[in-house]
């Protein structure tokens, strides 16, 4: 069994209610480093100034800041916005262009993983069919750049689903090492957290509601572990006793450790909005994860 090497990082998604409001990009990245995380995940369309073409000044600052703070770029968030053109669908060529743009940006910024969020065409979140031919066409570029494309398995999608089977079939059929699964730990939530604060919003004008999905048991991970390349450690609230009532961290981490999985656990805080909440909750989660790993694999040194 391989020795697991689990590294803690943070996605700047966590600072959604504060970015450009109470915190600059510098503030967010400094906060990530200060809590002892070593991996940095960003969203291209949120955090790269003048996306998708950052200035040389922005790029210089990006590298200098990461060097100074000892941060490694982990995963770049990307979107294939298949509804981008009013009145018509996105073509395969346009999806390829979006993926190539983001692969090149990921490589330019030093990321090893690219998470494309794909448009969907059905109520049960079947991805737009452009995803398959477009992905196949960019695998060579991904290989050249050594960036792994990893769509996320995110609530309300489940692990035992056609979409995950299709992703795995692509990997098996092509033998690619540059496509994998990203697990968002929100799929394992035991109870729903209703986020408070922020600007009021609703989905649609009718009475439609998101699909009801069963609780995904952590054991569903067992079969797909060989394909998992990155984890977004989604969480909503960690209480004053350092307990997470929503995400079963012990069970989840036990599977990773037992499989000898190595990679980044990139924290995504998605709890209540409020000034300073992300910084506090992220530290709680890292403490919780480090303590759990000490119990699960006492001989392992979690880096750092």
């Amino acid at each position, binding site marked *: 069994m391989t020795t697991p090497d689990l590294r803690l990082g943070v996605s700047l998604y966590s600072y959604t209610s504060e970015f450009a*409001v*109470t915190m600059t990009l510098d503030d967010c990245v400094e906060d990530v480093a200060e809590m002892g995380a070593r991996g940095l995940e960003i969203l291209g*369309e949120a955090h790269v100034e003048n*996306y998708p073409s950052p200035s040389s000044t922005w790029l210089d600052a990006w590298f200098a800041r990461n060097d100074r703070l000892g941060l490694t770029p982990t995963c770049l968030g990307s979107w294939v*916005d298949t509804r*981008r*053109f009013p009145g018509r669908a996105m073509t395969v060529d346009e999806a390829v262009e979006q993926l190539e743009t983001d692969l090149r940006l990921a490589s330019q910024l030093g990321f090893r993983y690219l998470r494309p969020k794909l448009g969907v065409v059905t109520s049960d979140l079947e991805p737009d069919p452009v995803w398959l031919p477009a992905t196949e066409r960019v695998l060579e570029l991904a290989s050249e750049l050594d960036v792994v494309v990893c769509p996320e398995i995110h609530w309300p999608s489940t692990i035992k689903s056609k979409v995950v089977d299709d992703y795995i079939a692509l990997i098996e059929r092509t033998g690619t090492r540059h496509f994998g699964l990203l697990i968002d730990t929100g799929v394992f939530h035991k109870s729903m957290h209703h986020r408070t604060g922020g600007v009021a919003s609703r989905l649609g004008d009718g009475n439609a509601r998101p699909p009801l999905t069963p609780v995904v048991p952590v054991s569903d991970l067992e079969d797909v572990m060989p394909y998992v390349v990155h984890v977004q450690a989604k969480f909503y609230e960690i209480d004053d006793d350092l307990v997470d009532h929503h995400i079963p961290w012990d069970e989840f981490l036990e599977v990773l450790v037992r499989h000898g999985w190595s990679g980044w656990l990139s924290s995504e805080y998605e709890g209540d909005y409020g000034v300073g909440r992300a910084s506090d909750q992220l530290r709680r989660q890292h403490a919780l994860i480090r303590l759990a790993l000490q119990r699960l694999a006492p001989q392992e040194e979690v880096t750092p």
Partner: protein
Amino acid sequence: MLDTHMIQTRGFRNRAGGGFEVRLRLPYYRGLWASLVDGAAVTVDGERFAAEDIGWAIGSSSWSLEGMRADASARWPLEEPAVLTVPRSEPLSVGFHDVAVELRLRMSYIPEELQPTVWWEERKLVISQ
């Protein structure tokens, strides 16, 4: 830095050439292709202004709503409030106004029947001059 609110305190003002402006922060977690904006309806003191009559400006670009939706390369970054230009024959009076905005955005990764995503907010804002 911007206000936490979607409707920004700064930038609510009468326009020299007629009508008024109101500024919006994108209340989402990423910047967007501007063609994904389905529009924003504005209501001031109960007077409703339809989304299709409201002009948009982001950074150095400005369009009608239709023009912005047709511009495939235009973006609305998180850090950049959009300036909505609202036609009105008379300027708004100096003092308080009840301002409401309903912003509609299309999300590609959410099933069609749950779209668009609609954000709304009401604020009491001041026309200061």
